[in-house]
């Protein structure tokens, strides 16, 4: 309760939440406002924004409505961002919790694997995965999640290392709790806040990764995504720059909103760190 009150005391956090809600509203209302397929041809190609009332944000090089693609693209970005983050955080918590709680050999093995993932640049690994498994929406989402787990794993492990020898965990052990009860019931709830905050960073990066893939035309071409639109706009960037700029702004706003919400959560959940 206190955390919620503290959250709403920060103007930046509230602004971030409002922006994020707008993006979510766009995703939900896309079907109502634009009942037609956003990838269907709608009019003349390359109409400038605000010049034709039928196409408020203009059309792209093949004459598809940019506004419709932006609305439907919000769905894709949120879907990929949300699911990939969930996958990354879940793997991260599992690996980090076991490594941090048991230490020793288990920790060594799990951390070496984590480091192996970290030494490869995220994006290169993502390209390899997409190249091998194909670029459908499902594989892209899973691939983005799989390349993003090492950081949350290390964070969870650090929290577990500092918590596992606390007296309340020892108390749980003297009460006769099993390891799994100690990990899930006693330590994890106390280790969670920083991981939740970090999830916002993972989500922002996941959205960017998908856009970058789409820009290279390696994402699923059969869905209307912001990245795909930027990729298309690449061909006409010098004259009809708006084709790339509009989805670019949408990505910027979404990532900014997610980051602000994350920062707000951080200040709300760790009040002592704020204001020195």
């Amino acid at each position: 309760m206190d955390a919620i009150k503290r959250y709403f005391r920060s103007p930046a956090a509230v602004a971030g939440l409002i922006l994020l809600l707008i993006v979510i509203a766009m995703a939900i209302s896309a079907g109502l406002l634009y009942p037609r397929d956003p990838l269907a041809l709608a009019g003349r190609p390359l109409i400038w924004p605000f010049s034709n009332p039928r196409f408020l944000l203009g059309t792209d090089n093949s004459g598809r409505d940019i506004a419709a693609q932006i609305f439907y693209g919000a769905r894709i970005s949120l879907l990929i961002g949300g699911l990939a983050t969930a996958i990354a955080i879940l793997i991260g918590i599992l690996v980090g919790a076991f490594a941090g709680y048991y230490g020793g050999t288990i920790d060594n093995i799990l951390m070496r694997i984590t480091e192996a993932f970290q030494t490869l640049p995220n994006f290169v690994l993502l390209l390899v995965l997409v190249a091998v498994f194909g670029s459908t929406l499902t594989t892209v989402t899973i691939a983005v999640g799989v390349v993003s787990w090492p950081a949350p794993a290390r964070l969870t492990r650090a929290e577990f290392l500092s918590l596992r020898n606390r007296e309340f965990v020892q108390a749980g052990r003297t009460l006769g709790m099993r390891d799994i009860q100690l990990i899930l019931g006693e330590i994890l709830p106390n280790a969670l806040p920083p991981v939740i905050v970090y999830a916002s960073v993972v989500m922002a990066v996941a959205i960017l990764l998908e856009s970058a893939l789409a820009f290279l035309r390696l994402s699923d071409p059969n869905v209307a995504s912001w990245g795909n639109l930027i990729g298309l706009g690449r061909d006409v960037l010098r004259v009809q720059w708006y084709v790339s700029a509009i989805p670019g702004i949408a990505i910027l706003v979404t990532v900014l909103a997610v980051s602000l919400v994350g920062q707000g959560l951080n200040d709300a959940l760790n009040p002592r760190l704020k204001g020195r």
Partner: protein
Amino acid sequence: MSGIADTVLSLDRLSVRLPKGADRSHALSEVSLSIASNEILCVVGESGSGKSMMANAIMRLLPNDVAIDGGHMMFEGRDLCAATPTEMRAVRGAGIAMIFQEPMTALNPLRTIGDQIGEMFSIHTDLSKADITTKVLALLTDVRIPDPNAAAKAYPHELSGGQRQRAMIAMALALDPKLLIADEPTTALDVTTQAQILKLIRDLQQRRKTAVLFITHDFGVVADIADRVVVMQHGVIVEQGSAASVLNAPEHAYTKQLIAAVPPLTAPPPRKLSDETILTIAGVSKTYRTGGFLGRGARVTEAVKNVSLRLPKGATLGIVGESGSGKSTLARCIVRLIDPDTGAIVLSGKDWATMSRENVRRETRHIQMVFQDPFASLNPRRKAAELVAQGPIVHGAPRAKAIAEAKELFALVGLDPSAGDRFPHEFSGGQRQRIGLARALALKPDVLVADEPVSALDVSVQAQVLKLLADLRQRLGLSIVFITHDLRVAAQICDLVAVMKDGEIVEHGLTGKVFGDPRHPYTQALLASIPGGAFAREHAAATG
């Protein structure tokens, strides 16, 4: 004792405001006192009484949201309340110096002791490098640090706690300050080291005629060191006067209560002990090996060496010793939080030391533990009733029944049964320790291992928790292993005591016998070092 002329610092109706939402509006309200040169003024109070806030206010080192909002602090003819930050910097260190409770955190871990003391001179004077080195050595010799040359070159972690505090004192006295503020300087130290540091402060003060403002919570320390005493409660001075008059004829009810709560050194009349043994510890050892590659440069610490003890049914066995003596390791071996290397721990016919982890988990309800830190030992994300009910739930009791029993236990340990829906942070330190006790009792153990259960509590709360423990052991027939560093606490509650030093038991027997007629020189040294020993004996003789 002192005329107005040689007053060093006087506080005149000083008030310090706390931020909104604190438990009271002012940390200090209209505090007036004065310190003369060549005297030690002790400020006594329990935690939250505002005594440390007063020290920080004098140094003008208050947190950002806390501010002085009335009164004056006169030092060397000017009001420190009105001094600019630049003027204050000249006063700090040179005019008023301060030593802190924990010397490890007050010293910079990356710089040598000599370097840090020398900094005092390089900031406030224009002495040459060579002069500074000589002065630093002279100071370290003055505080009687063993081998001053080596100490000057040492880093803080290379010195013991007592040596670090000596270095802090040397640093504080470097510029011959008029006033030395000592904020609980011996609280983090062992009792024998504490006695040495108190003697050092007294000696230096008499030689240098410094005024000392000594902040403490311990009336034993007051009896040893104070010329005059100020007693604080909730940010208000309730009583002040000469040490003799406050200690022997306290006027305010709160002072009387604090003095009455000081545990007397004499043991209560011995209780009859059962012949039946419930717990036998035989030849238990635990050795730690750290660092080293392929056995080279490894450090071996023998935390517990061949300890054998016997706990009669219904009795309380005290294990006393200083930090590093291995008493906490022994306690953790008994409940198998740590696996002992050798030896047997026999509880009702079963050997705990060699039992498998799975069996320990199942049998753990026979032996339970109460932890030292009431803040760290309760999971902050669980409600109080849940914490207490956890043990029975783990061992298969239905949840609703366990919660109902937890409420009964609340009443047993003197808590409001309806408080079960609150989180740990909503309770005071003493109340949390009661929750910890209820949690241990929920499994109806035969043996309770209590690891410093009252060390983190104020004296008055300490007395209440000890009384509760004594009462419970009578009603429930509990056998208790009681770990403590405080001999006064041990004397009050234990039937038997064992004195531990460097992992070994050096002396054990009936409490009255060990404390009344100590045989081992270490036990004798421990007993002689108890602060206010003489006062405690007089006090005990006078009251009972």
